[in-house]
């Protein structure tokens, strides 16, 4: 995983709230056995029209969205299923941070394991960002701050998730280092059960 410190990029804005994982990537694209190449199906139901052509009014299809690495979305982003295909699709499309007023639990857990920074800002900053499509936004993970025209907002993030994102390390390594404690726990449970 690539370390994440500070990222400045144009932001794509999806002003809807409650964007669920079925919108992020519909279930019919979950039939693969790898995690690569899902970016083309990101927001597939909104992004393409009935004929499969790009929908002209969808922000991700705007020429200004090209190369954007930050997504700003309405509150309760990522609700619904546990599919990690949702952050995989966002990352494959190039996104490294999602900014919202609230983010669903499982999606947030999945995002940090894929180098995608979940950024929850206060409502005022969120409103300003939602009203400013394609402006340059900076997500500063070290300072835990979002900066954009008219916006300077602190954001909270779990210290452990932040460390992993800053270092680009995955959490499995940390868990594997706990194996002696896990073995001891298993042994104590066996003693209790016999």
């Amino acid at each position, binding site marked *: 995983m690539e370390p994440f410190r500070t990222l400045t990029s144009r932001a794509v804005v999806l002003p809807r709230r409650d964007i*669920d994982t079925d919108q992020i990537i519909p279930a019919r694209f979950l*039939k693969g056995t790898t995690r690569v190449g899902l970016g083309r199906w990101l927001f597939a139901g909104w992004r393409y029209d009935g004929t499969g052509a790009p929908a002209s009014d969808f922000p991700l299809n705007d020429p200004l969205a090209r190369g954007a690495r930050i997504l700003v979305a309405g509150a309760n982003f990522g609700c619904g299923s546990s599919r990690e295909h949702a952050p995989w699709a966002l990352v494959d499309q190039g996104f490294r941070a999602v900014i919202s007023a609230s983010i669903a639990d499982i999606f947030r857990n999945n995002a940090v394991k*894929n180098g995608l920074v979940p950024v929850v800002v206060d409502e005022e900053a969120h409103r300003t960002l939602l009203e400013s499509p394609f402006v340059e936004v900076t997500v500063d993970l070290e300072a835990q701050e979002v900066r954009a025209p008219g916006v300077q907002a602190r954001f909270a993030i779990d210290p452990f998730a932040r460390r992993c994102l800053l270092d680009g390390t995955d959490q499995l390594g940390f868990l594997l280092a706990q194996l002696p404690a896990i073995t001891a726990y298993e042994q104590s449970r066996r003693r209790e059960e016999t």
Partner: protein
Amino acid sequence: MEQSETPARTLFDRIWASHLVWPETADAPAVLFVDVHLVHEVTSPQAFSALRERGLRVRRPDLTLATMDHSTPTTPAGAAGEIVVTDPECRVQLDTLEQNCRDARIELHPLGAEHQGIVHVIGPELGVTQPGRTIVCGDSHTSTHGAFGALAFGIGTSEVAHVLATQCLLQRRPKTMEVRVTGRLGPCVTAKDLILEIISRLGISGGTGHVLEYSGEAVRALSMEARMTLCNMSIEAGARAGLVAPDDTTFEYLHGRPRAPRGPAWEAALGRWRSLRSDPGAPFEATVEIDASRLEPTVTFGTHPGMSAPVTGRVPDPEREQEPVARRALESALRYMGLRPGQPLQGHPIDVVFIGSCTNGRLSDLRAAASVLRGRRVAPRVRALVVPGSREVKRAAEAEGLHRVFLEAGAEWREPGCSMCIGMNGDQVPPGRSAVSTSNRNFEGRQGPGARTFLASPLTAAAAAVAGALADPRRLVDGPAQERR
């Protein structure tokens, strides 16, 4: 024995504490031990690959149980009982799971096997789902198992790899919320109607960061299958998990199940399980109270499970919504659903009825649907599918002749699986068509591109099948609710 000076603890606290391998600190989450890891074909292949890439083995295949459900076809089996997988991508997913389970010596219930079915149906059926256990699966509806007083929640594929490799998860302690349901549900008002009301009250993000514990007279009166329906949709309120403290209803359900303890071990387990409850006055971070006696058969009208109303009610008017973001969301939902503000829900024409899923695909659900369909016909032009949640459910339903009720009514009787709840296997609602579905999500496109989903109980879904429109099941069923209590 509990000491009198021990602080009052919640059921959640008890399960959490007994599974802590390492407590959380400011810098690091807790290491939580997992008793049961359920695995299916869609969210596991990348996790097995991750283990292979790092040269890791599955640590506890004995605590891992796999089945096939999401991408399996439900088309009725051939004369020789064969089930043909025509979708090549689905075939690869199923083969991959088979290979991964063989390599890691994980118990797998493959397509067509005696105990195959939806992962959240077979866990309880086998007696693997037990009070006090921690249960996870790469599936958000893992909350279902909380009906037994197990701490059960959905995880992503990276976490599936964590559990495969270490049998543990890194977790921050969630908050707890008590959802106290007083009174009794009325005739034809079911656990599905109750959970839709709870989601509507909390909002679809109202449970975020919380484990919900359902308590109160109405919850105590529910059967295990109804409690599973209730806990199943906890995630639709944004909650991590739902819990019901185990009681005699739980123990009666579990007794004699293939994996339930037997003999002296059963007595020992009962002793442990009886202590699994929240103490009087135990602190919850939030509490909500709901009066069950006021509820009515309920349907969703919008594009998330929080947008619901009594089936006898009307579609709300966005003009009355003060908050602009909420107004736009409602306008957009009604446009997608093809509904007019203020129109009555009853009588709105529908095209498809789906009875099944991990929410409502169990025997009591099929009995409820059959109680409406017996001696009646599915309306012309309506396609009705009945999809049992597992092979066991299918066998039991056929032993009672329920399949004949469905077939004689003009409904399809299919093989078990997730089917039209998620539409991965080709069972889809056509674009622009309206479906009454006993499943759990009415998100845009959930049941197929452009599909319009109305979530409801099996009774309400069956009533809609007969009427060809949204309908009140109380007009078709006499006497008390048909669901087994």
